[in-house]
């Protein structure tokens, strides 16, 4: 039997919701007629340089009976060799409980002649199997496919006892689509949320189906620094709900969601600690009186005294599997061990035990999607941190994130809407972004330049904030050798001919201290020599940087994960027979909105013949890390100006 949720015969039709009704579908077995225009078309309609264009793509989803039945029908016009390559083979993967039936395909050339797929062209393959799981695929090669041809294929998919709860309906793909339509016949009441396709709604169609269509959908393409795919692609999510759509709001949804979490997670136990937990909190915070000091103490306890099994590089999968899950914060406290979530819950308990109002924060994950409270679906949020009210202000902590410094959250958890869950109610608010100053790379170089242009010296780089977290996550599981190789790759990405030695990598697994590199470097021909001059880029750390944006045009918004800053302090002892010929300093590059700032100072210690280079850079001021595509040119110009200044050349002249 199908596992049916509470379903009611109504359906929301609010901002992003609609109503479906029950009826039957019809199945067409004949190929639909091809238009002469499509057959002879030489150029695509939606995007002029497309390799192939989907003429139509229909998916008919029938969730009205015990099984979920889907009918797929795709028609594609091929315009180039790349399009031919893309559509030359078709795989339809499926697992146990899914049947793929009635596969048909044909290719029609511009002259109208067709080749149909035969039964023997279709292969049933076991892609992967274990003693319990089997993944299969129906696969076929499309015969006689060539540029100019139209390829069509269709098949039926039946999921035994399947249902469409939380089904994602994708309207945008990596090829342009002239028309994509979902026909949907729900079991009962249901709702959906649309994304990046606000104009599209399900409307009543024939035989109990509802229909949602998009026309002329451009292909989804990758661009540098773009937001997560869910933020740019056109898609919707369907779900069943027992709420009265006419009266129910997003707030009602979150209230019900929160209530469910409170029950399932035992939030009351977490946020209403017992005597033992109070005693523990008092003991841990002993000696601290100021709220921030007390919170810092329990944060430190949770982060450093509780073994976080999600971050133990020595723990193998089987050892992790053998650990009995903690059922309460008391378990975590007594065992001094737990998952990241356990650690955060314990922190919430201890904070509450000290008398602070603490709540479990459920927020969006900005690496996946930018969460808004109005988007009432539980898949968009997760337990991300703990909010503690200090002096009337919510502050956010996540000691379960081993390498995120005190006072910060991971970049994907900050700057997002959040639900703060207590055991009686919830509130919504926004977690603020971090500042550029919190995520800083402090880079120091003490170099000597030889007469032949070779640069040798010692480098120290300290990464703080998000950068520290990212470097630690990239390195803490690796061997010392791999960590060194990572550094060499990092250096050579900037200066390809550099030789790195005497490497020291510090604080790789330290929860708070900055991730630090110290190394010696030699770069032959770092400065270019002509007859009487040496040309030198004093900004060693950025000397090999490439422009961040190269394309003249932009389709999607520009997204930086987090604000950051850089402080470079470089001294270069110049060859004794050379003196500074020219040390023009690049002009300051900054914007009026104080989002970014680059200042470079170049000086000379005449007595010691040492060039002194200081650089300060920040980006993401005032929390600005997302820019609309219309801002591309100014953003690109800004980064071009940064790059020009960063790679500024000075001249030394032989005495």
């Amino acid at each position: 039997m199908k596992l049916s949720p509470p379903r009611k015969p109504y359906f929301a039709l609010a901002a992003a919701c609609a109503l479906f009704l029950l009826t039957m579908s019809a199945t067409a077995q004949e190929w639909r007629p091809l238009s002469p225009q499509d057959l002879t078309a030489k150029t695509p309609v939606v995007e002029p340089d497309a390799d192939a264009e989907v003429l139509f793509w229909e998916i008919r989803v029938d969730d009205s009976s015990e099984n979920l039945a889907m009918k797929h029908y795709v028609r594609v016009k091929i315009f180039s060799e790349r399009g031919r390559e893309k559509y030359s083979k078709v795989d339809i993967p499926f697992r146990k409980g899914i049947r793929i039936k009635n596969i048909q395909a044909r290719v029609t050339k511009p002259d109208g002649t067709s080749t149909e797929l035969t039964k023997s062209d279709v292969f049933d393959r076991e892609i992967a199997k274990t003693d319990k799981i089997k993944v299969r695929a129906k696969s076929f090669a499309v015969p006689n496919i060539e540029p100019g041809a139209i390829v069509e294929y269709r098949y039926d998919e039946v999921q035994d006892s399947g249902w469409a709860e939380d089904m994602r309906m994708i309207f945008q793909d990596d090829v342009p689509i002239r028309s994509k339509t979902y026909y949907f016949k729900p079991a009962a009441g249901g709702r959906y949320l649309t994304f990046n396709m606000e104009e599209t709604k399900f409307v009543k169609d024939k035989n109990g189906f509802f229909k949602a269509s998009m026309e002329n959908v451009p292909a989804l393409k990758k661009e540098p620094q773009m937001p997560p795919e869910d933020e740019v692609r056109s898609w919707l999510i369907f779900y069943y709900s027992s709420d009265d759509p006419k009266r129910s709001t997003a707030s009602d949804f979150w209230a019900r969601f929160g209530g469910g979490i409170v029950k399932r997670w035992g939030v009351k136990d977490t946020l209403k600690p017992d005597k033992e937990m109070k005693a523990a909190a008092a003991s841990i915070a002993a000696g601290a009186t100021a709220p921030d000091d007390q919170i810092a103490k329990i944060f430190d306890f949770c982060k450093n005294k509780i073994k976080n099994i999600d971050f133990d590089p020595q723990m193998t999968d089987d050892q992790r599997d053998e650990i009995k899950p903690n059922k309460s914060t008391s378990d975590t406290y007594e065992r001094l061990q737990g998952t990241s979530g356990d650690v955060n819950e314990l922190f919430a308990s201890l904070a509450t035990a000290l008398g602070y109002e603490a709540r479990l924060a459920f927020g969006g994950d900005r690496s996946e999607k930018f969460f808004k409270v109005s988007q009432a679906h539980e898949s968009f949020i997760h337990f991300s941190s703990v909010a503690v009210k200090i002096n009337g202000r919510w502050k956010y902590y996540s000691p379960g994130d081993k390498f995120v410094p005190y006072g910060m959250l991971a970049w994907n958890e900050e700057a997002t809407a959040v639900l703060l869950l207590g055991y009686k109610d919830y509130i919504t608010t926004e977690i603020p972004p971090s500042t550029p100053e919190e995520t800083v790379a402090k880079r120091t170089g003490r170099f000597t330049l030889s007469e032949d242009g070779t640069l040798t010296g010692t480098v120290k780089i300290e990464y703080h904030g998000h950068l520290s977290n990212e470097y630690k996550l990239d390195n803490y599981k690796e061997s010392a050798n791999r960590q060194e190789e990572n550094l060499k790759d990092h250096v050579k990405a900037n200066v390809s001919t550099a030789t790195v030695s005497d490497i020291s990598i510090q604080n790789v697994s330290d929860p708070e201290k900055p991730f630090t590199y110290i190394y010696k470097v030699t770069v032959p021909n770092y400065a270019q020599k002509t007859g009487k001059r040496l040309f030198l880029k004093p900004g060693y750390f950025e000397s090999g940087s490439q422009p961040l944006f190269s394309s003249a045009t932009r389709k999607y918004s520009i997204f930086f994960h987090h604000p950051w800053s850089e402080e470079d302090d470089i001294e270069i002892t110049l060859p004794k027979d050379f003196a500074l010929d020219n040390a023009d300093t690049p002009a300051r590059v900054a914007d009026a909105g104080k989002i970014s700032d680059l200042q470079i100072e170049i000086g000379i210690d005449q007595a010691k013949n040492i060039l002194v280079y200081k650089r300060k850079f920040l980006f993401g001021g005032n929390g600005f890390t997302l820019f609309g595509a219309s801002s591309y040119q100014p953003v690109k110009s800004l980064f071009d100006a940064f790059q020009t200044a960063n790679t500024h050349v000075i001249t030394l002249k032989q005495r």
Partner: protein
Amino acid sequence: MRTVLRSLTSLVFAAIVLLAGSVAAFAGDDTAPSWMKQAASQTPPVYEKDVPAVVLHDEQQVTLGSDGKLVTVENYAIKMINREGRNFAIARAFYLVSAGKVRSIEAWLIRPDGSVKEYGKESILDLIDDPDDVYNEGRIKVIDASGDVDTGHVFGYTVISEDTPLFYQDRWQFQGRLPTLVSRYSLNLPQGWKASSITFNAADVKPVVSGSRYTWELRNLPNIPPEPMSPSVDNLAPQIAVNYGPDDRTQAVNRAFADWLDVSRWAASMYDTQVVIDDNIAAKARDLTANAKTELEKIRAIGTYVQNLQYISIDIGVGHGNGYKPRPSDLVLSRGYGDCKDKANLMRALLKSLKIDAYPIAIYSGDPNFVRKEWASPRQFNHCIIAVKVSDATAGPTVMTHAKLGRLLIFDATDPYTPVGDLPDYLQGSYGLVIAGDNGGLALMPITPPESDLLERNISVTLTDSGAVTGKISEKASGQTSAYFRREHRSLSSSDFRKVIEGWLTNGSAGAQLVGLSANDKQAQSGFDLDVEFAAPKYGQVMQNRLLVFKPVIVGRRNAIFLTEPKRTNPIEMDSHAMRETVTFQLPVGFVVDEVPDPVNLETPFGKYTTKYDTKDGKLVFTRSVTMNRGTVGADKYAGVKDFFAKMLDAEQSPVVLVRK
């Protein structure tokens, strides 16, 4: 590339993840087999810190039964030296559905404390070997313990598999990149059978013979470090090729081969019957060559058609030899797709209908040094191309003279980017088996001269007194260089190709703008032209309002090489190509050249590089020229090679200084 739902590769990964979640944990009281315990008790030497693991024991025991079945027992144990070694804790067993099976696969983990974990049936994942083929009988059973192991752990496995050998031949590579303490291959043959071996990449390894059991063994093999421009491991690791068979050779027909002629005869029996010339084939050949006037034009017309057919591989009956047998040419024509041997065979049929003889060539794709002439075996090949018999009227760098067959034009009908008259560089200089029955045999494929793979670039630039430039780049590529550009151009949409060119320009100067772009693919002539118009507002840097400094190298070489490691273990392999560039700068009024870099003239056996600067009539003309010769340079000459590339790089970074008059 394939389409629709999800890529199968990602699906395979998803399946692996599913499995990882489904494997039950075992108690720590399991027992490892004695061979593994013994292997684990060894103390390996201390290796360089970048060696992630050491193979303690690598053994294959192969037994040919009187029923003709080959049973292979593989015992393998590896110790993790550091955390990167975890990725090697995977047992794999390949089998062909039609001709073999894996009887059992078991694995064990011995932790440093001596406790043992055993991996049984629940841990086995059975996968298709090549998700990209529409159908392929090759499958692989996998036990992945990489998540369970850490430094000091020993992982080992035993695989027992069974198959019917297609040939009485085998190959054993004593190691991969990892150091190996014990590597052993043993062959148990029926009474009266004999075996012999040929050793590659090492001194002759002689077997220990006991009755009809032969054992080859090497110990304490050092690691083979990965290095750029290095020969493949196949050409560095010691290996043996083994031939075996009964005394009565008549019992081993088509399974054992005395020489390459023997292989040619066998292969011809697989290919020749598949050349089916029906009315459709004949009509297609006539249609394709309707406007062709010469022999070469006919070959080109048919070659172009076949190489543009969709590549699709459907491998059925591989265990019975079908992996060496093309599908009938009439079927391939009607379906409009095929793999390499299908394409070669179809081309052969089309040519034959025009009374032009052609022969398939079995070859190895990817490493021209892979095939060894000392071992006559079909097992050395993974690809099929074609040799077309041509008259004296047809000439070119890919025409070779065969002792028995005369002049042959060599062509790869699978590579869609290399036209008739050229050959992919990864096949040039390789041995290939010309499949022509009694007239066939092994032959060395032609090598085109560096001047055939030429990039000629002319750039004209106008420089202003603020350092801004506007200019035009005109590139003419030929040979394999044009194939490289063609591949890039065809694999990208026009907007994506434009972005690549924009990136190429901006790497030379921040803020560079692409003003005009025109690509002209002249595949038939093995050429590719590219014309670019650009502007860069901050190309040169003005200093003290007096000097104007800029790099004469506007755009980089796309195949720049960086050799930075101080020492080298492996030889260096060089590809051949050539580039000639002339950049003409119209200098800003009021400025004269103050300094130019010294000209460079490097000449070595493996390559030549020159730069030159000329100033005349307010113009600066910069020329550079590179010619690299194909070949292998010994590791002892590494310093010279490294110095050569370093000097090239330095020359291309050096600026020109103009001074205001």
